[in-house]
């Protein structure tokens, strides 16, 4: 057994961290949040040139040919930087869906542009709030055309193409649709984290292409893979929130002592540290399942997703509390972390959804 990333992988992570510390300070997320752009365009272009989107894409489709472990580490660093770019939509959702479900021909057609960032991708699945995203669908494919409406689609306004979970006959399918069409209506939605904007997509007979491998199981598998990758992004955000709160509490004095020296504060940090390390271990296991042991993913992915969602939310709310009065001001960064934690915790179904799914898989019949 070897439960750690390799030296090469750690080197990649270090390089990514150094790059992002220089080119993506937290002010970048704030600028997108306060400005009119849906994402940081320059950062996006550079990330595309650096080949980050291509990380887990096979070289035959224009990728870098690394694996899932490398992508996990990049996700971690992007999360740590609160990077305001459609990386997750493109890499964990669209590219992963195509890798899992596309035919060779479909991969060859769609992946190269996604892998360079020339095109932005996303996955559209939510229809009715609270409903399982791949059952009882109303969005449908008929004669190669999409009809229906999807809500809270990540990066809906920025994306060039969407993989859409839909129904064809009585079968659940994944369909790819180009979004620059007058048969697609896009509406930005006001949301808690405008540095990761969401929108609705309405398809009025837009042309689409059904991916070769479809069905509920395939959609569930795409979800599992994305959940594991999102977990790393959440973990990165949580770790940064923890670290910068710790720094603040070491520097801030009350009653002549650093705030961090009070036992009541130490206990909160200890709780947070424990949560972080447990979430990290669960995420590592999911990374391994992603790369090497697909049969483990149906338990490992929900596990990582739940732990990471909860710990990022905890870290960001504690960040606000431990900063005291300034913690809820616009000027301090705490709310940026809180927004991101909320947004990432819901983007792929809430922790509650994943808990339900996890235990159904653990306790239910093998095929559920």
């Amino acid at each position, binding site marked *: 057994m070897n*439960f750690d990333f390799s030296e090469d992988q750690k080197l990649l992570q270090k390089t990514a961290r150094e790059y992002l510390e220089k080119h993506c300070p937290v002010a970048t997320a704030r600028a997108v949040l306060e400005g009119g752009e849906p994402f940081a365009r320059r950062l996006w272009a550079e990330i595309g040139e650096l080949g980050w989107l291509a990380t887990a894409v096979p070289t035959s489709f224009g990728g870098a040919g690394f694996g899932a472990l490398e992508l996990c580490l990049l996700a971690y660093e992007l999360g740590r930087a609160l990077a305001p770019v459609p990386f997750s939509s493109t890499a964990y959702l669209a590219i992963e869906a195509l890798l899992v479900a596309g035919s060779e021909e479909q991969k060859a057609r769609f992946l190269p542009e996604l892998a360079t960032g020339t095109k932005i991708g996303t996955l559209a699945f939510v229809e009715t709030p609270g409903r399982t995203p791949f059952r009882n669908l109303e969005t449908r494919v008929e004669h190669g055309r999409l009809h229906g409406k999807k809500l809270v689609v990540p990066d809906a306004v920025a994306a060039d193409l969407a993989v859409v979970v839909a129904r064809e006959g009585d079968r659940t399918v994944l369909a790819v649709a180009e979004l620059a069409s007058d048969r697609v209506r896009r509406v930005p939605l006001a949301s808690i984290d405008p540095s990761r904007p969401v929108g609705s997509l309405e398809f009025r007979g837009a042309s689409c292409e059904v991916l070769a491998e479809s069905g509920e199981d395939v959609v569930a598998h795409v979800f599992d893979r994305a959940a594991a990758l999102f977990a790393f992004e959440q973990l990165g955000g949580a770790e940064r929130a923890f670290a910068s709160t710790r720094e603040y509490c070491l520097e801030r004095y009350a009653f002549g002592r650093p705030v961090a020296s009070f036992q009541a504060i130490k206990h909160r940090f200890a709780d947070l540290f424990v949560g972080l390390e*447990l979430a990290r271990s669960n995420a590592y296991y999911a990374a391994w399942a992603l790369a*090497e042991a697909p049969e483990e993913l149906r338990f490992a992915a929900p*596990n990582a997703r739940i732990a990471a969602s909860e710990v990022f939310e905890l870290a960001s709310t504690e960040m606000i509390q431990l900063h005291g009065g300034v913690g809820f001001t616009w000027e301090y960064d705490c709310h940026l972390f809180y927004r991101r934690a909320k947004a990432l915790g819901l983007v792929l179904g809430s922790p509650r959804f994943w808990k339900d799914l996890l235990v159904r898989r653990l306790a239910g019949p093998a095929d559920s």
Partner: protein
Amino acid sequence: MDFRDTPEEAAFRAEARAWLEKNARALRPGARRAATQSRADADTVRRAKEWQARKAAAGWACLTWPREYGGRSLPPIYSVIWNQEESRFDTPPNLFAIGQGMLGPTIMAHGTEEQKKRYLPPMLRGEEIWCQLFSEPGAGSDLAALRTSAVRDGDHWVLNGQKTWTSGAHYSKWGMILTRTDPDAPKHEGITYFIVDMESPGIEIRPIRQMNGEANFNEVFFTDVRVPDSNRVGEVNGGWKAALTTLMNERAALGSGFAGPTFEDLLELCRTTLVDGRPAWEDASVRVRLADFYVRWKGLQYTNYRLLTALSRGTTPGPEASIGKLVAARLRQEMASFAADLQEAARRASRGRVAGGRNLAAVLPRGSRTPVGRGHRRDSAQHHRGAGARPSRGNSRGQGHPLPAATARARLNAAGERPRYRADARQKLDKVPGAR
């Protein structure tokens, strides 16, 4: 990154399993092996020693110890594999972990050649059991504040004082003890480490009765106990260094072996407990709690794997080594409490006392959502909220708990005499509370 056995590990696992199948009985389904030290009566001690001797003879003892001391110089993962395999068999409790896991390595690092030759082989073969005499009533968290004294008298030392929380003192042949040898030195610098014969005159061992009526720990009193200087480990007043070796090994040795229900037990209970004719896990509130347990359970297990990976690379574990200590005990308590509440809820439902039939959420305790990483702070809030609700749900009638009140009372009464026994009356071992 790889969680699967390497080919060498897989071969080792197969070999271990084959040997166990030949030499031990498989555990009955649903049964669990006895916890480490509980109910260690004379017969249990005898069986534990025999089993250890057989393992040692076949080369399965102290796998991580260097070859020169009888081990196999294997990385820690092999001990884990062995333990995983052995846990499927009905073998006696391990009474040797403190010696082999903590004190043996200390003797290897700081003992003399004579000490290594004399003590390590019988420790490995399970012929002599060891206990660790560190904590005192006023020096536990601040161990270096200890006051038990050792005063030189020719080629002997004379020990006086009291130790506490000593696991297995009543069946141990040897103890490793920290003593104060220079009361005027700074507290870390006046400490000397000894090996003490637990059968020496002047040692009195008193069991500490626990809330479950058993007594796995002891207080140990020293009155003019004579220890030869040849039993000193390390320099005079230099014992703290050796103590740190023990403590480092303790941190690595603990954290995995906790008694109590496993997640798999709990899941099985939720599968088989019927509420209104349907398995409990089909209730949404039960699923949420199960998932919370699973996330922490697996998080602990994988954190342990990360530690093992670090250890096998020769890295010293950092603060994450303390996570097991912080999480495991509370997690087991919460799982056990949930199991008891679930059974009670099912019983009430079967009597038609739960409004809405399967609405378990109305019966299970509040605070059913226990987020990962929220430890004592959140839980103390739960206690306040739950305080009014819990006892009223039939617990006062002694129902709905795994250990009915009558049984618990009987055990407490049996232990009530609080026997005192001296080292020279060790045949009275069976009087240890909880021995039956």
